């Protein structure tokens, strides 16, 4: 199979955004990767290795081979990300590629890994398509997705804001935005909300005033911002500037919802996030053993708590190493088999399943809220509810995920 490690070491490819708007997330991912490699090779305090339910990793690398890694810049562009991944595979002999901070990139690189015959452990990718119509046998996703955000968030929204709300969606005009919009709208409508309008905003937009100004007059009393990154920061800031949150519509307080939160991004919006609900994959304030171990390990090395991106990619590196060890082989097909349908615990988020049908991971999802009185600069979100995995699980043939097929696992040459 492609890039079978022959010497005393094995190379992993960490493909993260180092330039462009997600560079900070990429940097945090890289920190987590380095930490994971250190732990796999027996250094540091072992992080989540001791709390991980599977105990086959022993700190001697993977299958006795020392773990080495190469890094590359995705630039958050599918083209550049593929080029970078290809060079890792062709030049550096990477046997697994992981990372990324957007769905477009994840899907593109996942396709490449399928063709090249290496395993892809997707990083931050929240679009339903990654494990829906674009799923691939060689790709696995640890992150949650739009559907899960909706499923976790909707009950909380209904509980807080009532069931007779009218929502107005502002959506980033590309695939991720659309799938999230669809998921959230479906989940909230199922609980009795109605949706007055879904407005697409251009990718390059920086000033959302002209999209936000008409919201109040539309009869909506909730604004859902299907934006991420810089778009999210700006649209939220603009919405607060326009005073939406001080208004009363239909006799109710006007509310804003940001379905996908990231602490790093929330920081960019500053005060504006206070009290705003959203969902997130993981948060450092979780109190389970795995999360505590990881936060301690990461915090001691770098001096600040890890982001959800860091957590995701750390887990994936451990999971990959674990799967290889359990399979006893680096062969992507063997690894894939070991990951499919695998259930484990101890990596944060409670008991977790990597479903065989679509390679989506099912675990608890967090509903969070911007904190009113943060105690320090990292303390921006507070967990409102931990939605159990069962509540966000959907059948593999759910219409929002229909259309693709995993195909055969490809071990390469």
């Amino acid at each position, binding site marked *: 199979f492609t890039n079978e490690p022959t010497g005393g070491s094995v190379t992993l490819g960490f493909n993260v955004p180092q330039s462009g708007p997600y560079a900070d997330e990429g940097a945090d991912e890289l920190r987590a990767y380095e930490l994971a490699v250190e732990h796999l090779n027996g250094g540091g305090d072992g992080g989540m290795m001791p709390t991980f339910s599977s105990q086959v990793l022993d700190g001697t690398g993977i299958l006795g081979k020392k773990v080495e890694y190469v890094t590359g810049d995705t630039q958050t562009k599918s083209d550049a990300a593929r080029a970078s991944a290809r060079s890792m595979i062709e030049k550096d002999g990477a046997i697994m590629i992981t990372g990324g901070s957007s769905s477009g990139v994840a899907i593109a690189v996942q396709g490449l890994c399928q063709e090249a015959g290496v395993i892809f452990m997707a990083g931050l990718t929240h679009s339903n398509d990654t494990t829906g119509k674009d799923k691939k046998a060689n790709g696995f996703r640890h992150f949650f997705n739009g559907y899960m955000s909706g499923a976790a968030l909707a009950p909380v929204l209904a509980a807080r804001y009532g069931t007779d709300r009218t929502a107005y969606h502002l959506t980033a005009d590309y695939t991720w935005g659309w799938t999230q919009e669809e998921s959230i709208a479906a989940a909230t409508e199922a609980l009795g909300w109605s949706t007055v309008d879904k407005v697409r905003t251009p990718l390059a937009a*920086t000033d959302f005033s002209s999209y936000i100004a008409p919201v109040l007059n539309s009869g909506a009393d909730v604004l859902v911002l299907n934006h991420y990154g810089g778009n999210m920061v700006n649209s939220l800031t603009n919405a607060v500037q326009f005073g939406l949150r001080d208004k009363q519509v239909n006799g109710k307080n006007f509310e804003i919802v940001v379905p996908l939160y990231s602490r790093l991004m929330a920081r960019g919006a500053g005060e504006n996030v206070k009290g705003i609900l959203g969902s997130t994959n993981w948060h450092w304030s979780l109190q389970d053993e795995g999360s505590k171990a990881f936060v301690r390990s990461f915090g001691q090395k770098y001096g600040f708590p890890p982001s959800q991106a860091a957590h995701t990619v750390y887990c994936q590196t451990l999971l990959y190493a674990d799967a290889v060890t359990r399979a006893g082989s680096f062969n992507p097909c063997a690894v894939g088999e070991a990951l499919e349908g695998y259930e484990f615990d101890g990596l944060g988020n409670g008991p977790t399943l990597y479903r065989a049908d679509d390679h989506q991971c099912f675990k608890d999802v967090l509903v969070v809220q911007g904190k009113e009185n943060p105690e320090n600069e990292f303390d921006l979100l507070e967990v409102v509810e931990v939605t159990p995995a069962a509540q966000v699980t959907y059948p593999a043939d759910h219409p929002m995920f229909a259309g693709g097929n995993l195909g055969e696992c490809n071990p390469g040459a």
Partner: protein
Amino acid sequence: MDALLLQILNGLDKGSAYALIALGLTLIFGTLGVVNFAHGALFMIGAFCAVTLQKILSLSSTTLDPTKTDFLGNPAKIETPYVESWFGPEIGAALIDWSVPLGILFAIPIMISIGFIMERGLIKHFYKRPHADQILVTFGLAIVLQEVIKHFYGANPIPTPAPDAFRGSFDFGSMLGFDPNVIIYPYWRLVYFFFSVLIIGGVFAFLQFTTFGMVVRAGMADRETVGLLGINIDKRFTIMFGIAAAVAGLAGVMYTPINSPNYHMGMDFLVLSFVVVVVGGMGSLPGAVLAGFMLGILESFASMNQIKAIFPGIDQIIIYLVAILILLTRPRGLMGRKGVMED
């Protein structure tokens, strides 16, 4: 009707941002003949002047509070800004609160010096070089400036709020007799609009009512001859560049409360401001301002749902579409001068 009025208002402040950036760009374009791809970076640096001032004002002394713990279980740190301990908590807090307007005072000397250094150190060697070389070198500079900022401030946006007094919005519609909540307008955007009108007026007056403007224009047309008339044109070019940098920087400072600044905000505006300048007509200040407001308002219209329903995706392309139509019907943009940058 109210929807239109609303979008005109929105367009005005979008337009004032475009106009202000384009103004600085066209100052350099029109007077010095330099295609400055680093102009967006100057705008960005202006914004980061505000960020820096805010950081400086919030510099804090740290004490440990044993009753609380941080995320690792160590005693938590309590930070008190120095300004608060020096000037008392109230004045200190006000200073921090007003850091964006104060940023203007802070940014002017910095931007002017950056402009001077840039012109003396780099741009002046490129007056006689082809535009393509100017593009490449200023683009390189833009990348470098960006990366330096990224190195120190990271890639994420940094919140830089307006003073408390200007936060929130007022109901413009109900003043005009419309229903409440129909036309709301944030205070700070109003401030931004008036600020840009002020700056634009100031620059116009400076170039119109002083001989300086004439000299600089003449110097662009023919440096050699102006030198033969005893005028040290280099000095004036440097000043001009400083002014343009300051205009860009101030636009940046004032923009920070509207959108949190990040290191690539300059690039986001760069292409757009070029389009604005060219649609306005190369070398024409009024043209740039007119085009800025026009495109801002049209962009706002295009984002209306009613219009998007007819032309899906029109808001994505409106600016470019309008640019094409204008350039095809008016050879030199709205108010361009003959022979400027036509080859």
